[in-house]
């Protein structure tokens, strides 16, 4: 989880700093530190906030035509960090006799596959060079993203 957060934060910060935006890059690093501290203090709700901030930062970077690879890596790192933080929170309820190791193993495998798939598709889209999307596809993607964000907000409220 720490590795995911570090990957995401470093990628985003690097992407921003490459474009000469050192102050936002520092804020991103600061957010990463706060996220790690929050996780250490078991403030699991913060991971949802951090993920939203990272997505917005990455989207802003893409909109400003920063190097997309760092933005995608940033988003992916944030997503993995959020997922594993949430998983760690769920594991807190496990009894010492429960098969926690097995669950961890399976979850990591699944998340790894999903992340690899997401990254692969993103890479593919970059290779195929979709420069412009049709309005319908964009609306569909926006709806999907909105659905995801709604779920995130709902989860945030539950904590």
């Amino acid at each position, binding site marked *: 989880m720490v590795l995911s957060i570090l990957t995401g934060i470093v990628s985003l910060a690097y992407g921003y700093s490459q474009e000469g935006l050192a102050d936002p890059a520092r804020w991103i690093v600061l957010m990463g530190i706060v996220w790690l501290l929050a996780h250490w203090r078991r403030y699991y709700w913060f991971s949802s906030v951090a993920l939203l901030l990272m997505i917005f930062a990455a989207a802003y970077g893409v909109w400003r035509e920063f190097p997309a690879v760092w933005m*995608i890596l940033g988003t992916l790192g944030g997503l993995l960090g959020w997922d594993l933080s949430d998983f760690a929170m769920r594991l807190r309820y496990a009894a010492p006799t429960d098969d926690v190791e097995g669950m961890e193993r399976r979850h990591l495998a699944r998340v790894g596959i*999903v992340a690899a798939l997401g*990254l692969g598709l993103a890479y593919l889209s970059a290779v195929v060079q979709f420069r412009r999307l049709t309005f319908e596809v964009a609306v569909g993607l926006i709806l999907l*993203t909105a659905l995801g964000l709604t779920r995130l907000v709902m989860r945030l409220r539950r904590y």
Partner: protein
Amino acid sequence: MATVSGGMFALMLPLVVYLLAGFLFAPDEIKLEATRHLNAERVLPHSEVQVTVTITNRGSYLEEVLVEDVLPADLKIASGLNRHLIRLPKGSSCAFTYTVTGPRGGYGFEKVRARVNDHLGVTSREVAIEAKGQLFVFPPVMRLRRVAIRPRRTRVYAGTIPARAGGSGTDFFGVREYQPGDPPRAINWRASAHTLNELYANEYQQERVADVGIVLDGRLRTNEFALGHSLFEYSVQAAAAIADALLTQGNRVGLLVYAMFLRWTVPGYGKVQRERILHSLAHARPGGSEVFSNLGNLPTQLFPPESQIILVSPLLAEDLLPLVQMRAQGYQVLAVSPDPVKFELSYLKKDQSVILASRVIQLERRLLLQKVQRAGIQVLDWDVSEPFDQVVMRRLSRPPARLRAVGR
């Protein structure tokens, strides 16, 4: 804005894949069943009871299920955990065991809560699975060898309570003229020697069963003291011990818990009645209400006329009048009174003012008990630091026949 940049599309893809994977692998149907097994359903306070919960999955594969057995209030976990994070493949079962302990009471287990997450934790659903179970924590029942009572009226069946009527029995009742059919050993030769032609026979007191109503005083103001200490548990123990002893002797016993409301256990005989009374005592809680704040509203009509009433109460000064009225109505009354003064003194810091105050209150109490006794009510003043069975043996057991014969 008819088009969106490809970079944004690539950025969205990992998120979209993640969400799609979450929704795609979400469980289709959640069909969980739960069974519960308790290794004992009737225990004494603070005994450990093992609870085993088995969850069976009749629906689709569930990767992550957080199962929590909902515990009734007041029960505490002694060992193990009532919450587990488990994986349940289709058709499989999972069991977990933990032990609980609790104070006197009746506890109902109702449901097991299960929170089902998909593989990635994107979707989460909570279900409540019915798994009923009951646990009764009964008060400890002390075995009393004998509780001597003398109601004015007894029932027709043979028992151990003196019936105030001559007949066959063990206690001497009187002398009457010898009747044909009387056994020769019944002839009182000493009395017969005073007359020339007549024989006299000894008559013994009949022993029968009686109706006994036990009134357990659960009024908050008589039982609750500072720092959360309560005399009520002692009263409950006394009521349980007396009920057990009287039922064992074959009497018909009823129980009235006089607290926030009335809880009436209809009189009955034997082991079934013992169970009923113990159930009622398990549920008994002290409580306060305007209506039942004094004993004046005690519904004495519930008890058969001239029967024995045993009141278990710390007693207040204002209880004297209702007790006298009960006596005037023809009931034989025995007041078992756990001593509230000594009880409260046992946990207070014994400085001079406390000792002085306790002496004053103890005097008041002694005065009250004397007044109650003068009204013809038998009183058992119980210092709760002493075991109840010993107090009863000393004060309420009828002396053996040989001692009574010599007038002791």
